[in-house]
């Protein structure tokens, strides 16, 4: 087997990109790569999140840990995250985790002085770094008035209640805590290939065709209103739920349609928390994946491999 190369050249075709949403195709590779990409995007791409909270005054109804937890979950703009250092690796501050290379400081100071309830939101967090700020979800294009979407509510204060705190945000990855996960959802599906057996299809009456089309909970097939032919409306709507196949079976027409999953092409959907752009998330993920593979490759034939991977080193060298 020595010398045989399984090298392939995966291709990515981006279908749709928004700030926090992306849909792309990944072709000519297999599930392991696709899944690795997904896993890295969810839990290995670093972001910045509040990790340490020093509470000075808290007379709100929520207790200190609760507020600290809520602060931690506020997504921060993390474009800088890749360039930042992990606090534990930072030599500028001896692991103190409070220097400019590995942390961002936030201040929050709120007091309710009148009878209306005061909403303390992520907008009240003042950052020491203008590039690392809470994500702004207010959409200028939307018609809903922006006063309502003032940010993520942290706590509500009544008259006389006060909240003063200092928070340190640090770089981290989703594996350690979900607050550092940049992805709301990353998912992929195999691209389906659908063949309609036209001959068999023509044996169906119009009602039966309609029944067949309706049997799929998602709109996969449709009927051409002109010639009454069933055609594949959108193959990607197919959720591999086998509903149509079961229907065909029930109608006594097995083989009416044939559906295969393409083994080597995947359709990814990525949604981010807003901390980093979806496109950036993909790039970062590939970068991290490469780094991780490098770590394996570089150490494959060195002594370090034994140190780094222990018994696994032998496996990695192909033993």
């Amino acid at each position, binding site marked *: 087997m020595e010398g045989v190369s399984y090298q392939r050249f995966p291709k990515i075709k981006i279908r749709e990109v928004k700030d926090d949403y992306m849909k792309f195709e990944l072709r000519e590779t297999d599930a392991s790569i*696709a899944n690795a990409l997904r896993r890295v995007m969810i839990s290995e791409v670093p972001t910045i999140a509040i990790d340490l909270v020093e509470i000075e005054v808290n007379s709100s109804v929520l207790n200190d*840990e609760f507020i600290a*937890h809520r602060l931690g979950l506020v997504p921060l703009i993390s474009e800088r995250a890749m360039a930042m250092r992990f606090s534990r690796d930072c030599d500028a501050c001896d692991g103190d985790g409070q220097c400019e290379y590995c942390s961002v400081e936030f201040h929050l100071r709120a007091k309710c002085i009148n009878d209306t309830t005061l909403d303390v939101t992520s907008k009240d967090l003042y950052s020491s770094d203008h590039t690392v700020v809470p994500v702004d979800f207010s959409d200028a294009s939307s018609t809903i008035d922006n006063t309502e979407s003032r940010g993520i509510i942290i706590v509500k204060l009544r008259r006389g209640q006060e909240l003063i705190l200092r928070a340190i945000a640090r770089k981290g990855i*989703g594996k350690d805590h979900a607050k550092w996960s940049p992805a709301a959802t990353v998912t992929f599906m*195999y691209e389906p290939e659908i063949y309609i057996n036209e001959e068999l299809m023509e044996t169906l009456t119009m009602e039966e065709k309609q029944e067949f089309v309706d049997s799929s909970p*998602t709109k996969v097939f449709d009927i051409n209103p002109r010639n009454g032919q069933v055609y594949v409306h959108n193959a990607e709507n197919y959720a591999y739920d086998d509903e149509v196949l079961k229907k065909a079976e029930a109608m006594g027409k097995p083989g009416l349609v044939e559906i295969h*999953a393409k083994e080597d092409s995947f359709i990814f959907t990525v949604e981010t928390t807003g901390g980093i752009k979806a496109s950036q998330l993909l790039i970062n993920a590939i970068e991290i994946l490469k780094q991780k593979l490098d770590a394996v490759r570089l150490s494959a034939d060195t002594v370090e491999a034994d140190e780094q991977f222990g018994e696994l080193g032998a496996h990695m060298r192909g033993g």
Partner: protein
Amino acid sequence: MDTSTGDKEEEKVGKAAGRPHLAEEKDYEALREIFRHHIDSFDHMIEHGLEAMMQNVKPVEVFDPATKLKLRIWLSNPEVYEPQKERFSRTMTDPLYPFECRQAKLSYSGAFMVDLNFQYGDGGVIRDKISLGQFPIMLKSKTCHLRAANTPKKLVLLKEEPSEMGGYFILNGLERVIRLLILPKRNYPTSMVRNSFRERREGYTDKAVVIRCVREDQSAVSVKLYYLNSGSARLGFWIQGREYLLPVGIILKALTETTDHEIYLSLTCCYNDKYDRGKGSVGTQLIGERAKIILDELQHFSLYTRTQCLQHIGEHFQAVMVGLEKQSYSDVADAVLRDYIFVHLDDNIDKFNLLILMLQKLFSLVDQTSVTDNPDSLQHHEVLLPGHLITIYLKEKLQDWLLRAKRLLQDEVDKDNKKFELSSVTDTRKIIDKTFPKQIGAAIENLLKTGRLNTQSGLDLQQRAGMTVMAERLNYLRFISHFRAIHRGASFAGLRTTSVRKLLPESWGFMCPVHTPDGEPCGLLNHMTSSCRLTSYYDSEGKVKDFLEIRKSISKVLVSIGMTPALPKLLLAGPPEVLPVLLDGRVVGSIASNIIEKAVCHMRRLKVSEASVIPEDLEVGYVPLSMGGAYPGLYLFTSASRFVRPVRNLQIPSEESKNIELIGPFEQVYMEISCPDGGNGGRKDVFPASHAEIHPTGILSVVGNLTPWSDHNQSPRNMYQCQMAKQTMGFSCQSLNARADQKLYHLQTPQTPIVRTQTYEKYNIDDCPLGTNAIVAVLAYSGYDMEDAMVLNKSSVDRGMFRGYIYQTETVDLAEDKFRADRSQRSFGRSNVDKSSHQFIDSDGLPFVGQSIGPGDPYCGIYNEITSSVSANKLKGSDHAYVDYVAVDTKNKKHLQKANIRFRHPRNPVIGDKFSSRHGQKGVCSQLWQDTDMPFSGVTGMRPDLIINPHAFPSRMTIAMLLESIAAKGGSLHGNFVDATPFSSSMKRSEGSESDSSLIDELGSQLVKRGFNHHGLEVLYSGVYGTELTCEIFIGPVYYQRLRHMVSDKFQVRSTGTIDQVTRQPIKGRKRGGGVRFGEMERDSLLAHGAAYLLHDRLHKSSDYHIADVCSLCGSILTTSVIQSHKKKVREMIGMRLPSKAPKKVTCVSCKTGKGMETVAMPYVFRYLAAELAGMNIKMTLELSN
């Protein structure tokens, strides 16, 4: 643009309607109904019950030998005041609020004042107010400050829950409820067969008719009418712990001026040869014989007239009747008849009639023309209400106190003290004040604190302990359940028979068949259904019922519909011709059997109609004629503390607005009530339904009602859920900041369930939610979900799912007794020398709020002013905590003496914590799995929060959990709640809307609309490999509860540690760092495995390993002794070098030589055993080989 905003507004309205938990004004009326019986009974006690009771407390008389006049003392005009703070200035009073009591560990009680009336001779009555101490006040009763706070807002201002319903007491800061107990139904003669009756005396049979008679002041006296082998009967009643048995003839004659002939006629009236052995005939010709025997007995005693009988009774009872020692015999006899026989009746003729009826019932039981009444059936039960318990207890306490006062006064008078004047009120008051009148209030408080009745007579109750329970606020459902729980009685708990625990059909609609714990109290501790109520002294408009008036009008109505009144003539006919009519245990007349059905129907109509004076909760217990069934008659009950529940009366056309009738368990048995579920219930056409259930869920308790689609579950699962709901960590209360409970569980981020029953909104459970909608996937994944274990998604937990806290309050009271022992003055403070505690304790000796404290860290410092030393209280337990709140009692003195320190223990889900769905599916978290490793949906990217194993379903058959998952999925996709009220399909069917679609189709179609699989299945991909899982996975949101059982409170670890002083073995107990016992069975197991080394390790090496010196000559291990070598010093002196380790010199004291010494390894307890045996003069010798 315009249209879009219009749509938005419409949407908003729709949203508000779909989100009842966000409603501005909440309706707590239904919730109030749940607690009503507690408060009503207490209110009545305060307003009228005490007054009525005091009239029944017998006055005492002190005889003044000087003037030959009597001083009469009696009580009247009880007054209970609202709780006030103790103040030094008498003029200013501050109200004492419940929250203050909880925090300061005080009792919520008000002053209890009574008028003492003195009458010297025939002189004028002098009234004098006397304080009887503090009377515990039930929350939300009329004497409670919270009563005025009628809106949630006002309650919140008083630091209470917005939904505070009261019904409990606060004693030393703890909330306690009076337990509802089952009692035999009052004023109804029950026939019974019990073997214990035979043992009463020679000649007794096992048959008797028993009646529990209750006076207007709730005190009760039970009377038993035994049947004798001779054919006669004896009337038994208890006086001062002894049962007295009287021939029934004497009582009959003593009660009224009558003749033998009259008695004979009255007794035999229930027999007529015409109907012999026919339907409904209860008498046989034997009854005449028995009447003769009863009368012959009187001849035997040579008692012929009423006066003779009274003389006879008086003669025998004078010794036992307190305070009547000097009265005439006939007065004593009158007192006996008044105080012990049929005390619910005042008139002797009524008593006579009732006794005749009981005799007839007894004879019919003997002749097997009627069956026994089942004493375990709810039909013959009522409830002991809080107000009634306190009233009867107080009555006895007051009577005892008066008698004590009398004795003291009499002693004082007899002493011939010149200074003492009996006629002077001030003098007598002085003596009376010596009798500790304030103890009366303390006695009630003690009853509530301990639940123990401290009484001589027993108050005609079956048990003396366990009358109150703590109202735990573990969560809201548990709290509610305390007020709905009904206990059968502690005496039944020890019984080996299971018959009392059985679920009988009689309790249909009154007791929840689902909501009873399993295990020890199963079937004994029941819960009332949500629709069940208890009758009280208040009518529906809150006015006090006038029972005299009510009974009068009922009698009037009865006569108008054809009843022959019993008075003035005794009735002279019996079943089947006519049926006796009893109203609250009084024979009011008889009614012909051919018109009775119509009469009953008429009564029911009057019950419902608003205009009539007939109370709506009147129980029309019509026992029809039968072949050897229950003894027939028309039994009417108006009394309080009966069970009632609403049903629809079908005989009243529904156009008339009111056709909801309240029925009781006694009448229910003989009624035809149709239920929308279960067809006709086997009913034949001959018996058409006269009533109908309002909704089938009426048979379930509040907690039982909260299980969604419980009709689709296997019934034991619903039982488990009822238990688990009560041990769920939830939002225990909203007024957390104003509370100082020992332990409170709190869920950080609870949610309202998507799938819920109508009950959920009815009782505003959203105020205190107790769970989270978790996305549950049912699959075998990773193997960590075997055997009811479940895998949680770590990321979900990171984001706050199932996070919780335990709030724990430590009260530090420096004035407490244990500190006072050395009489030293103490205050809070910290040491200025030792600065190690400064991190935790502030200069005032109390911790910083918000400070994190580890186990063993100090949290408060106590400065002893005499020794000027500082000691610290340290945090117990094994997990760290935060200081949540520090409350100090600033009221007393200059120095702080009392502080409440509340800790907050964060409890994030960890492996080993227990969770459960609402369908009795509990499980333990076995792994917190990374988000990326969880299976995910290709379409939506959804990862489950929680994975359970499919094996949880087939054997348990909790179909409703599957339905819930599908419904919640549909509901969340469409953005609405789903109604999961059980039996709603059968309700729909009965309403005529014939929908052929099953529930699952309805729910499934919701899913299909949004492009999901009809059955809730989804294609999932392995999170680890990215490949499609081989089958489709059932996934959807299910409401999960976090149970309070958490590993952090339970884990036990020990390597080395403290050992027992005597045995040198490791100690037990988690708290003290002890180990888990390696017991006999474990030993057997290792023996069977042949694991000898392991056994040796466990039982010896790791336990009490000991090397003992044994003298092989005498074989004793106790006589050895280590000899300090005397020569040591000498050797040192001559400068001899010591060997590096001098050999230990051991000798046997008894052999006086060290020659035979050997060392043997043995468990230390063995040595202890030898010592113990030696203590008993037994010598143990060891024989050592090689």
